[in-house]
């Protein structure tokens, strides 16, 4: 769970890291063995989905907190 802006920043960096690795693998395999793209992609997609869910959850909680304060 993300609870602070610093943790949000780290989650965004992790997202960028995994997206970059996924992109590199997909480009490489598209040139060499396209049939392996689904195999290589699945783990990254699971990790990215979890990170993005955590980020959205944090942003929604922030919005609720801001609305309550107003």
């Amino acid at each position, binding site marked *: 769970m993300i609870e602070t802006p610093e943790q949000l920043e780290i989650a965004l960096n992790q997202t*960028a890291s995994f997206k970059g*690795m996924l*992109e590199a693998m997909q480009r490489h395999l598209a040139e060499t063995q396209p*049939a392996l793209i689904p195999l290589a992609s699945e783990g990254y997609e699971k*990790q990215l989905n979890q990170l993005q869910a955590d980020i959205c959850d944090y942003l929604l909680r922030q919005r609720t907190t801001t609305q309550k304060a107003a």
Partner: protein
Amino acid sequence: MALPDFRDDGWLPAGHHPTTWEELVVVFGGQPETKRRRIMERLLLCRDRAREYNITGRLLLNGSFISTKAEPGDFDAIFVGDEGIEDILMENTEARLLLNYQVCKEIYGGDLLFFSAAAARKYPEFCRLDGFDYSKDKRPKGLVELKI
């Protein structure tokens, strides 16, 4: 080759720390009949299967398994396969299953991300390999690096 001391929060200091399988068993293998020992046994099984299929590369280990936690949940890992791994995977169905995310989770008890040295060479700008360098509370921490 020796792993550094653990920090007070139970994680290794930040960085990717090379080690041997022998040291891994000594430091993280736990006691018989414990969850930690079961995770280690499944990880060793995964390593042995990889060797059987001539899969070689670097394994970056992450997760509570490489912390001081007495009852770790699992291991996460990035496996960077050596050049030519794609040919092995194309020729051997069982080798492909070894790197299948769901199969790895169910049978070997870990979350595995597959990467290749060839992709790292061709696209270095995308290959940070730092996705696991932070704990769940987003503190920088260490990973363990092994050769398969």
